[in-house]
């Protein structure tokens, strides 16, 4: 424990210089501006900044990326409050109550609540990040091919189930992502798969161009397909954060922090799940249910705390297991690999200091958003006045640079175009991109783990189901998929209903 504290102290001291502070603040500011602009996601922001910071030292580059990640999600709440459009998907839960408060002439108060919720939520997540990442990494050291196979499959299945409202489409996108990851030379024998003799495909589809395509170019198309410009609500009152309200709603803040971190731990689920689950939990337990959706402070605080707490939550499995918790953390993981840091169980052995560096970076990001929340709210809102017909061509220019810069090959620009166009049409048909991205990231791991596991067991699939951790993952994965079968779902509801009735009968005054 003391060794961990010493590492953390070193990490903090390492960032106490002008360059790091400027990079941290710059990253957070860029993130807030991107978050403010509807349609531009945290994934796109981190992907573009990854290419921009490719020549910087590792710690400076990752600091900028983490600060921009936190900044984007924080910035998105302003658009939700003032325009009733979530700046990022994670801010959708803030729209209802945040915008309702704005319409009542309390836009500044709503932004203040969002700032205090975001600060407290991220801080809570940072504490969990520092406490649980080393522990999880220690546990993951005992993982073998069988466990990693299930972990990858579990991630894609969970992502497909939770993201969006149609699990079949989610799983299909996950399968598509896993398949796209198989294109190119495979990891064991360097055999070309699905390249059709085209050399450019031998290297596979790179992650950054795929992400820039599915989250950047697809968004440019989506935004320009809907030319309607939204109107801003006027900001009249003070935007200073209300920490008195944090104290008043401490139960909501704590509950949402825990929910945010827990949803963050689930692979590929995304920050919006943290926000929505926290919002639902607050609605279920509040005394002012009638205010929800009409300007409830409790609801806004829950949504903002939940989504921000899930950021450090997403970074935990990313560092400890090498399994990203969300699409933005997938880019963050790719950036770490580009800079020579391989996330995963071996990180505690190869780069023990790095985990604590990330903790220090995330806390710097938290402080940065508070600073901008205090001093730069109104000037930053000017970016919301930029017309989308002006902004989107510039964003596409950045997408081209972002796709190209990683490997300096034109093929990556073309794959960004193709994937982006495909993503645009698929999104219009109700397919979500997050399971696709997770499949793309985990495809290589799933392939290697399956084949290595089968070699170790000499073709038997029994170890995939009989090892203790595998049993846990397999049970949850299969259970989640079976829940979609109506007969099984009805049976589960019958059983849980019966158990619930028994518990209800035991409660005082209910019997």
């Amino acid at each position, binding site marked *: 424990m003391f060794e961990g504290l010493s590492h953390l102290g070193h990490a903090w001291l390492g960032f106490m210089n002008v360059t790091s502070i400027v990079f941290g603040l710059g990253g957070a500011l860029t993130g807030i501006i991107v978050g403010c602009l509807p349609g531009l996601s945290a994934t796109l922001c981190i992907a573009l900044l990854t290419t*921009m910071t490719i020549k910087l030292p590792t710690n400076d580059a990752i600091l900028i990326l983490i600060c921009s990640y936190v900044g984007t999600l924080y910035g998105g709440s302003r658009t939700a409050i003032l325009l009733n459009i979530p700046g990022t998907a994670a801010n959708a839960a803030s729209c209802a109550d945040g915008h309702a408060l704005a319409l009542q002439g309390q836009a500044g108060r709503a932004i203040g609540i969002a700032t205090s919720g975001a600060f407290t939520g991220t801080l809570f997540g940072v504490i969990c990040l520092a406490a649980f990442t080393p522990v999880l990494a220690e546990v993951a050291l005992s993982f073998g091919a069988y466990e990693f196979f299930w972990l990858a499959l579990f991630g894609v299945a969970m992502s497909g189930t939770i993201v969006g409202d149609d699990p079949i489409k989610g799983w299909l996108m996950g399968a598509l992502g896993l398949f796209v990851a198989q294109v190119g030379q495979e990891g064991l024998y360097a055999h070309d798969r699905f390249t059709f003799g085209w050399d450019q495909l031998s290297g596979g589809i790179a992650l950054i161009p795929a992400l820039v395509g599915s989250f950047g170019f697809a968004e440019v198309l989506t935004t320009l397909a809907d030319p309607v410009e939204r109107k801003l609500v006027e900001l009249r009152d003070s935007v200073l954060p209300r920490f008195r309200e944090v104290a008043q709603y401490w139960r909501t803040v704590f509950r949402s922090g825990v929910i945010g971190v827990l949803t963050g731990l689930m692979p590929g689920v995304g920050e919006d799940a943290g926000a929505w689950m926290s919002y639902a939990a607050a609605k279920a337990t509040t005394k002012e249910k009638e205010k929800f959706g009409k300007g409830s402070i409790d609801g806004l605080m829950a949504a903002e705390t939940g989504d921000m707490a899930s950021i450090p939550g997403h970074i935990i499995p990313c560092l400890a297991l090498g399994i990203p918790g969300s699409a933005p953390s997938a880019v963050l993981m790719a950036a770490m690999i580009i800079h020579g840091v391989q996330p995963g169980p071996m990180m505690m052995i190869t780069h023990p200091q790095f985990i604590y560096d990330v903790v220090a970076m995330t806390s710097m990001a938290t402080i940065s958003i508070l600073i901008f929340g205090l001093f730069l709210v109104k000037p930053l809102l000017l970016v919301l006045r930029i017309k989308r017909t002006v902004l989107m061509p*510039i964003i596409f220019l950045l997408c081209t640079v972002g796709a190209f810069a990683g490997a300096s090959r034109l093929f990556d620009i073309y794959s960004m175009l193709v994937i982006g166009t495909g993503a645009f049409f698929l999104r219009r048909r109700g397919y979500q991109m997050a399971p696709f991205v997770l499949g793309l990231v985990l495809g290589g791991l799933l392939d290697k783990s399956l084949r290595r596991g089968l070699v170790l067991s000499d073709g038997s699939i029994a170890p995939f189901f009989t090892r203790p951790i595998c049993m846990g993952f397999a049970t949850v994965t299969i259970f989640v998929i079976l829940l979609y079968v109506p007969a099984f779902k009805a049976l589960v509801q019958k059983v849980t209903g019966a158990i619930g009735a028994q518990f209800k009968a035991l409660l005082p005054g209910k019997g």
Partner: protein
Amino acid sequence: MTQPSPTDTQPTAVPQGDEHRRVARSDLEGGVGWMALGAAILIASVRMDRLEEQHINPYTIPGLLPGLLGIVMLMLGFLLFVRSWRRGGLHPGAGESMQERWVATKRILMVLALCGTFAVILVGHGLPFWVAGATFVTVAILTLQHAQRVAAGQKLTLRKVLTTALIGLGAGLMITLVFQEIFLVRLP
């Protein structure tokens, strides 16, 4: 800044039944597409080289996971097809008129053409990035705002063209300066 009217935040009213039918129809087509893709992947995986001449372990053949993924896509595509068929996907849904659909399609095709021209023709073939970028941004803004100008009954003035060209030039130069000169990133 002005207050939005209540209608600003409300989605266009589409009859619930028509919307359902349209989704079912789209899913039906999607189901067929996924089944075709799954079948193609499965066939390609079965026919993939098993590297027998290298005497590899038969459980590590390269086509193993892709083949399994092909089967998964086939099954899920079939489920999607059956579900949308049961929801009335065989009957074409009403909704947007042909004219509305054509306006939306035309706009998307225009954006695709603009972006495709920039990324495939202008970039990476010797033209400096800032020139290509400035040209693209200027042309794209003028083209995209054309419909809005027509709707508002405005004409394209020289001042408007010059302002747009200035925005394009600024964007091209700024991106080149920041990426190439400050962060030392190679541009296409």
